[in-house]
């Protein structure tokens, strides 16, 4: 987690004639290092996913797979809260041990372990898992083993939907993100295969049919394809709570109360931080760290939004052929 100082960029210019923009620069507030990426490319079948009344997803299960304790709350906390509110059962799976953030490695690991559990609770997940691979070193792990563990969990939890870091994040610096995304992506279809890890079936597990995926981008550098904008307006406070629960790393946690204390020493206060530490933590995250999600929402007429590359269930090809046959078969 680093802040970088950049020199002032040169001014933007109009594109040459006959050139069409292939990517859209995201508006940034500058308040948070981990928000929307530099650029999105929008698919021409982009959909806005709005809150759905009732429990349309009752009985469905999603797994939110993250490399680090702050990934899902920052980039997909609103979606997680929305899907759970609409009936999904959610599980949070962290791949690394987050040892790279903390006073000492040991303290960091312990705090982030707690955080992963608390983030899951704050967002409404039923349970949180941690795999504890070494932070920032996941490109030295056996990806096939991480994948195998995810296959096991997808099967035992009967996961229908995956939420994770886009495995095709361009310009990604952090190897953990790519490894976690790739392992999760591969685990989706393999968890439904009959010949992969058949010993699981011998133990009574069933194949999992992971038919929907939401891939989120990772900032600051990135260029991601987006075909789904999720309206997280009604869930912004839950997303904030998920981030406040993340004390061991990331820009949220107790930053608000620390700023409040710092100002108090100077004989000042910031009205938006309220009159107590809990309010300060919440308001700090909402006002500063959620601002770019507000700006993204604004582009689509929404209060707050998150953006995803969504992959939905494929229609059964045999079913399509059968429909064609039924419609076109003639008598001999």
């Amino acid at each position, binding site marked *: 987690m680093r802040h970088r100082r950049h020199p002032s960029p040169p001014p933007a210019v109009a594109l040459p004639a006959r050139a069409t923009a292939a990517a859209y620069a995201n508006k940034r507030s500058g308040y948070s290092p981990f928000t929307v990426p530099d650029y999105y490319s929008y698919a021409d079948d982009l959909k806005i996913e709005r809150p759905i009344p009732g429990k349309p997803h009752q009985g469905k299960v999603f797994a939110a797979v993250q490399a680090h304790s702050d990934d899902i709350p920052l980039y997909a906390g609103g979606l997680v809260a929305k899907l759970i509110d609409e009936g999904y059962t959610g599980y949070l799976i962290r791949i690394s041990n987050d040892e790279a953030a903390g006073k000492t490695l040991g303290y960091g690991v312990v705090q982030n372990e707690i955080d992963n559990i608390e983030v899951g609770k704050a967002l409404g997940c039923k349970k949180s898992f941690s795999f504890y691979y070494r932070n920032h070193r996941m490109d030295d792990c*056996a990806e096939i083993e991480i994948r195998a*563990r995810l296959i*096991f969990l997808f099967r*035992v939890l009967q996961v229908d939907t995956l939420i994770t870091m886009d495995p095709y994040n361009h310009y990604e610096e952090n190897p953990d993100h790519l490894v976690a995304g790739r392992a999760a992506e591969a685990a989706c279809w393999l968890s439904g295969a009959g010949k992969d890890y058949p*010993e*699981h079936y*011998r*133990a009574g597990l069933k194949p999992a049919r992971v038919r929907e995926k939401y891939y989120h981008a990772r900032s600051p550098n990135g260029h991601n394809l987006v075909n789904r904008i999720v309206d997280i307006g009604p869930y912004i406070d839950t997303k904030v709570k998920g981030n406040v629960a993340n004390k061991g790393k990331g820009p949220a946690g107790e930053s608000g109360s620390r700023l409040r204390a710092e100002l108090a020493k100077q004989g000042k206060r910031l009205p938006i931080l309220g009159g107590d530490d809990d309010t300060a933590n919440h308001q700090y995250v909402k006002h500063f760290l959620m601002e770019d999600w507000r700006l993204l929402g604004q582009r689509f007429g929404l209060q707050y939004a998150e953006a995803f590359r969504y992959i939905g269930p494929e229609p059964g090809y045999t079913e399509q052929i059968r429909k064609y046959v039924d419609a076109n078969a003639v008598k001999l």
Partner: protein
Amino acid sequence: MARADVKEIVLDRDQPGQPHKGKVFAAIHAHLDDVPFYAGGLCAKLIAEGYTGYLIRTTNDEKCGGHTTAENILSNEQEHFKVGEALGFKEVFHFYYQNHELNNISTLDLRARLIFLFRFLKVDTIVTFNPWGHGEENPDHSVTGRAAEEAAWMSGMDVDYPEHKEAGIMPHPVKERYYFYARPGQAFNRVVDISSHIEKKISGIVECRSQGGGNSGSLLRAKLAAQGKRLAILGNDDRTADREYTRHFLLGDDKEAGAPYGMQYAERFYYIDQRTPELSQVDDYVTRHAIPL
């Protein structure tokens, strides 16, 4: 020969009744013919004495069988089922890693799969390659033995793969190990008398047709017949020919292993017992020395 670094040799003879009733062993081998040759007698003996046995093959045996790679995979797969049945195993598992290339796979993946099975099947004892055995040319043997050895203790640790508990699969330590005597000069500290189980062992070996020479008898019989000859010991049908060929020509190591101890047939193992006594040394001391306050 026995080695000076493994203390005295324990002679393991048949035990009456079912002293191992309720216990489970897994025989883990790389190839179709490993367990039948190195430990077919031990496996038959343990099952006869009450153990439930499971047979796990780690490779796909694609390099053996004399046919196309695909056909070899199929024939070895089908024969593996038959070997398991012949030796009395309850169930057979195959992992199908690429034959002769086990030193290029993720051994973590292999180990994790063994941990899963050891826990799920509640394995108490493993029978496999000695991962520290000298003179081993085949990487599949070394990797299989090493993964099984690591899995044996990790399967008892509740912090390794804790997600297994989600499926009700709990940690289960493996406490006893029998490592094959697979190459001349490897260490052994236990000689198992398999004389009364030799027919079972032969039944296992004769199913190894793609490799291991289990069908050598019938092949020789056919060859001799084409020359207008026959070998009396091979009998009058292929099944008898295969069994008798095995008995006469393929069990030399077992005869050699048993001879110094007056056993007709024996198998050698490096045996490790990690069972803990019901009372630890501290518990025992406390029991004997604790006095009222």
